[in-house]
């Protein structure tokens, strides 16, 4: 029966090409506009580490006090931590894995050709197991390397390929800022989206991952400036040592806490630590701390720009207008067919038959409109990519503007479902046709 209805639908749709085209265009444009917005929102709000995100936590400590928030409209603690606190948390070693980390930039001297600058990250070896970073060869550096501030480096896939095309880089040396580093490992291409572990450096939470990774202790010993944000409320003492001793925040800290009990214990420890710092005279305000898991942290940091959410709302409103439009056109379409629907009723077709027949026709419009919508979404995303090209240098723009398999299914499903919903009223109207009345007019 479905096949027959489909054939009827095609025949009916071909009878009034202009009306059909308008309906399909309305559905297609509505889907295209709303799904262009939704694709980016979906890519941005994905969970970068689904199997582990509930175990990864970011601590915050109120090192600036209530005065620092007096001018602000939101009551937020500093979203990075100080060197002092990072070291205290590393020493306490309360999680399964933990790392203090920050973004750096160093010159790479390839030996032949001009030196170039590369983005890097200073971290403890736990960084790699904490975030399940996949290695192509080699392994993270040793705990002894962390301890000994060793000149070792883990290369990202891109930089490894640039420096040692075709060969294995492990065991070779790379000259960074004039010093030779031994390559301990090379990563597979790895690009979590969003790049959750540092939402500030390189412009946004959707930046590319780094070209290289060096021990945190090594970077601090070499006095490598942060390539991310550094915020102070009071002038730090002068020099690098002054920065390390200051209440300036410039480090990210992540800790893995596998169970609810571990989270509770860590929260307690964190509070006690802050209270102790207060007793020691570092603060003169009540201790205050926060602990966020990965996904809470993404929300807290507003990784998804507000405008993207606004755009999605506007896109959905757009879809509603297009569907209302389609409802009007469908009313006209089915109304014009009252005659032959009446004949079918008179020949014994039940109301349900008519209803199903029209529903198939509506569904077909939805599907074709959906296919058009996929094309328009792709076009919309291409326009988006072209417009954002000037900021694409460090951002994973391609992945934010691509239709993956999941999105394709969402688009087609939304198109068909929305069109059928929109078509329910016109279809119901059509199935209410009075056979006798229609025949009389004929």
């Amino acid at each position, binding site marked *: 029966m479905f096949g027959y209805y489909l054939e009827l639908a095609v025949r009916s749709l071909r009878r009034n090409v202009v*009306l059909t085209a*308008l309906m399909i*265009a*309305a559905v297609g*444009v*509505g889907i295209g*506009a709303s799904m*262009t917005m939704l694709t980016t929102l979906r890519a941005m709000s994905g969970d970068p580490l689904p199997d582990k995100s509930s175990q990864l936590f970011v601590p915050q400590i109120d090192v600036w006090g209530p*005065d620092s928030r*007096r*001018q602000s409209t939101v009551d937020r603690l500093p979203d990075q931590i100080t060197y002092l606190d990072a070291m205290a948390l590393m020493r306490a070693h309360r999680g399964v894995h933990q790392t203090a980390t920050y973004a750096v*930039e160093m*010159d790479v*001297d390839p030996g032949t050709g*001009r*030196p*170039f*600058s590369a983005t890097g990250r200073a971290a403890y070896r736990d960084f790699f197991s904490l975030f399940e970073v996949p290695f192509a060869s080699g392994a993270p550096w040793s705990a002894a390397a962390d301890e000994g501030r060793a000149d070792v480096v883990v290369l990202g896939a891109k930089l490894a390929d640039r420096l040692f095309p075709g060969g294995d880089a492990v065991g070779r040396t790379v000259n960074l*800022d*004039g*010093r030779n580093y031994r390559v301990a490992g090379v990563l597979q291409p790895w690009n979590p989206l969003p790049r959750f572990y540092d939402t500030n450096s390189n*412009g946004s939470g959707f930046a590319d991952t780094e070209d290289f990774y060096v021990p945190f202790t090594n970077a601090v010993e070499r006095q490598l*400036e942060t390539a991310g944000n550094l915020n102070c409320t*009071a*002038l730090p*003492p*002068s*020099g*690098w040592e*002054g*920065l390390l001793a200051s209440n300036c925040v410039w480090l990210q800290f992540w800790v893995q806490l596998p169970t609810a009990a571990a989270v509770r214990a860590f929260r307690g420890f964190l509070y006690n630590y802050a209270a102790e710092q207060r007793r020691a005279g570092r603060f003169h305000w009540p201790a205050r701390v926060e602990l966020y898991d990965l996904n809470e942290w993404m929300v807290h940091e507003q990784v998804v*720009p*507000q*405008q993207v*959410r*606004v*755009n999605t*709302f*506007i*896109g959905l*409103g*757009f879809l509603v*207008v*297009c569907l*209302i*439009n389609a*409802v*009007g*056109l469908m*009313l*006209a379409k089915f*109304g*014009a067919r009252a005659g032959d629907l009446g004949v079918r009723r008179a020949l014994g077709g039940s109301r349900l038959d008519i209803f199903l027949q029209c529903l198939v026709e509506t569904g077909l419009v939805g599907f074709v409109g959906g296919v058009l919508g996929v094309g328009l979404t792709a076009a*919309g995303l291409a*326009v*988006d990519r072209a*417009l*954002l090209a*000037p*900021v694409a240098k460090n951002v994973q723009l391609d992945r934010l503007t691509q239709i993956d398999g999941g999105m394709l299914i969402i688009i087609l499903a939304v198109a068909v479902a929305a069109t059928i919903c929109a078509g329910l009223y016109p279809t119901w109207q059509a199935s209410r046709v009075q056979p006798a009345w229609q025949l009389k007019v004929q």
Partner: protein
Amino acid sequence: MDVLPILKALRRNKIGAILIGVQIAITLAIVCNCLSVVDQYRERSSRPSGIDEGDIFTFSNQWVGKPADLAARTEADLAAIRAVPGVVDAEETNSFPLRGGGWGWGLSLKPTQKVPTSPTTLYFVDEHGLATYGLRLIAGRWFTREEVSNHGMHDVSFPASVVLSDYLAHKLYPSGNALGQIVYWTPSASSRIVGIVDRAETPWAGYGGPEDEQSSFLPYHFVSALAMYVVRTRPGRLAEAMRAVPARLYALSRQRVIDNMKTFAETRTTAYAIPRSTAVLLGSLSALLLAITIFGIIGLTMYWVGQRRRQIGVRRALGASWVDILSYFHTENLLIAGIGALLGVAMGLASNLWLVSHFALPRMSVVFIAVAALCVLVVSQAAVLWPALRAASISPGIVARGL
């Protein structure tokens, strides 16, 4: 035109009329919110930065291996750049307008203040700064060579003199007497305001916000392995200088990385790329939405005309002129669209308030929504013209043929 028969006819056609009305309402609500975003972008991105944008290019210079004699190397670099044909002047700094990242601090009027009077960005400049940027000094003076000192990445001093943007000067001293005043960076560090420039945007002006012109210039040589160079050329010689300058610098020393070479026009494009993409997207969405609504109105009105062929024929036979028929459909549309537009104005304002409170978007002006409503009404009237003409062309004879 008598409205009563139209209303009576509409009662028999409730759903269609409601559909058009609601469609117009939502269209209006969306379009005015979209256009308000577009308008804010246009307003924001067309503000001048205060510098000679057409003739400036910038790049970053990073010394490889942290050499000890940074200040001397920078001085040699700048001398070499200034000698390049076509170059007006050059400057080394920590940041420049619209760059994206930069330095910020708070300025206070009194040493004991707990909360600063205003945040400000800090630009490090020397005696060449005024000529390099092409800033317009409107009061006081620029820095002399003797005033300029070295400032490293982790130095925490502040200079004796400072030049402010006019906006910041007025924010600190609303009565306009900023020149010569002492302002405080910390309880123990202060500077005298020696000059005021008419405009200077912050590095983060592209993000929008109230702090876009709160800029301070500090007489410092920035002593850092990674610094920005700003070069101003004679008109028309930008491209030539952009090729010559790096070649000249590499000739001085190859132990460096020159990166992010950009004309200021490119910097501006980059700074506003995200709001521009939003504006283009929402602008074209609005146009599409209006088009869809026009076709919707045409489609539905055509359907009504088809339904009422007999009635129209009867009216014509009874003496109605084609102008009467035309004005019937236009009045009917005006009624529906008018109610829809009123609803749309309410929805537009409500949705804007919601967006303002939830997403910190700027508020839309009432004039804006009124203009948008008028546009939607005109568009809707235009859309109904064709179906109405079709209706008017129905011959009175149709009644006689019994159809």
